[in-house]
């Protein structure tokens, strides 16, 4: 009786959460290893046969190994965007927190606007075309940076506020020039936020479906999420291959998350810098 009272709610919550998170994942895994006919029924049954390797190879090799191209593109996109995001957002957050200037209000407004205003697709495409950046990978990198930088700036700025100004001054006395102060003293101290930004944003950008769909047309530019269309069309969908594809696309971010889990939590919660 007391056991139920003490753990009842916890167990119920765990079961609920497990249901919501694990069942869909199990469904993906099961469907991915079924053969085509059984998968088409879309039910929660044990596979009758396991054409695992066959499904895997088909997904990889379809359309001239499009998934491989997609992996390369997505990786370039993610790494490029994250690098720019970290450096730019940390710089802006640092300068905005440290320097008192009359245009601070304007900067804050723009940052918040970037966070709140919905992106306007058609004008953006027009602008990209004028700049010659439409349907290029670096154009896409700029788009991802622009869409995500506001959030990162806010994260960085809050963290910089917890770093005592004496750190900057000690570096100045030691002879550091502004770039030295930022790259050698401040940026390393921002590591917890940087890890948070890297993980959260890389998952978001790697998994981004909508923006590459708008801004990155063309078979050479395909990103991993767009490969899902390979096995899905109006009249003919191979659910086993579709789910195998989903599985292959989901696993890398999952590994990143599991690997950095502890640091992410630390980065989101810690503020104080132990000196």
């Amino acid at each position, binding site marked *: 009786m007391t056991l139920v009272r003490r753990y009842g709610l916890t167990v119920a919550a765990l079961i609920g959460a497990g249901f919501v998170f694990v069942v869909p994942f199990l469904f993906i895994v099961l469907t991915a290893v079924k053969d085509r006919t059984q998968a088409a029924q879309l039910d929660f049954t044990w596979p009758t046969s396991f054409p695992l390797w066959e499904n895997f190879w088909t997904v990889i090799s379809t359309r001239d190994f499009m998934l491989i191209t997609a992996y390369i593109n997505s990786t370039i996109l993610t790494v490029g965007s994250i690098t720019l995001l970290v450096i730019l957002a940390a710089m802006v957050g640092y300068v905005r927190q440290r320097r008192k200037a009359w245009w601070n209000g304007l900067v804050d407004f723009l940052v918040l606007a970037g966070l709140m205003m919905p992106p306007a697709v058609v004008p953006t495409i027009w602008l990209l075309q004028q700049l010659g950046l439409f349907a290029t990978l670096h154009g896409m990198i700029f788009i991802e940076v622009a869409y995500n930088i506001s959030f990162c700036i806010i994260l960085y700025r809050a963290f910089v506020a917890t770093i005592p100004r004496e750190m900057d*001054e000690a570096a100045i006395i030691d002879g550091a020039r502004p770039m030295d102060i930022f790259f050698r003293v401040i940026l390393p101290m921002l590591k917890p936020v940087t890890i948070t930004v890297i993980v959260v944003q890389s998952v978001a950008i790697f998994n981004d479906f909508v923006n590459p769909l708008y801004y990155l047309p063309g078979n050479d530019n395909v990103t991993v999420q767009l490969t899902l269309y390979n096995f899905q069309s109006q009249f003919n969908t191979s659910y086993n291959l579709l789910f195998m594809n989903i599985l292959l696309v989901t696993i890398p971010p999952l590994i990143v998350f599991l690997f950095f889990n502890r640091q992410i939590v630390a980065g989101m919660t810690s503020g104080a810098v132990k000196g």
Partner: protein
Amino acid sequence: MSDLTLKSIRKSYGAVEVIKGIDLEIAHGEFVVFVGPSGCGKSTLLRMIAGLEEITAGSLHIGNVLCNDVEPRDRGIAMVFQSYALYPHMTVYDNVGFGLKLAKAPKDGRDKKIRDAARILQMEHLLDRKPSQLSGGQRQRVAIGRAIVRQPEVFLFDEPLSNLDAALRVDMRMELSKLHQELGATMIYVTHDQVEAMTLADKIVVLNGGEVQQAGAPIELYQHPANLFVAGFIGSPKMNFLPVTVKGIEGDTIVVQADEIDDLRVSIPGATARPGDAMTLGIRPHALRTGADGPIKGTVDLVERLGNETIVNFRLGGGTQWLAVLDGDMPLHRGQTVGFTAPEGEPVLFDRDGRNIAIANPQAEKAA
């Protein structure tokens, strides 16, 4: 060599003037302590010397160079901060060597300098640790090491001991003194603790409200405070004060009186005073002696018998609280009425503006 000269230095934040015109000469190798209550502008003045704050007006010379607009790294200074401000992601070795690395010093020379500094501070065994693995006192050493390694002409310290516990503070104080003798560099040290100031300084600069109240050797300030503020600030326990009127003058002796005390004779050679002048009388607790027919009569409130001395809290007739520190053990008790005297040379008199009348006249200062 590196003398420091400050000429009518001023600092304003917007309309608020924080430093109100400071003139100061600091000789090479001197240990100078800026002391004053919290918020009087000590840190601001130090940071202007360091180059971390702009100088609003006036001139700062280090050596013979006008340094108002010189970058901190080119001023030949090093600074130790109150919070130590060690770089948390670097080892002690890298913390100490960071400045040298930025200056692109060759690796061998750098290594030697770092190890020399570590040896002077006896922290060679700490070189591989991160700041988070150090105790407060050890962090303090690293911060000082970071300053030493730059081989500056002038060391700047901003309340470097205030984060340490009392026992460690006394140790570090002695070490700083030793370090000063060893290095022979100029040191400027900020503190709000007058005991630290008295023990460390060759010269104390007492600041209040952004102005220099008095600058001089510690004993000089103790024996001949220029004004009421310095008299009250330097010396522990605090000097006793009482408003008095001049009753008469007999040669070098001024006789003062008040409602609360009988006639008291104060010997101040060469001082100018006229009967009827309103003044403030100051007597250090250590100058008071018991004497049954003494001019100062008080009711004992509290007695602290420490064996070698007795600290007596007492109340004058009008309720003014005074303190006396008497030699040896005195079996006094609460409520008792006691008479006190002071040798004629000990009391100090301040005029209506709070200036010490003995110092207002430079001739008198020498005679005293």
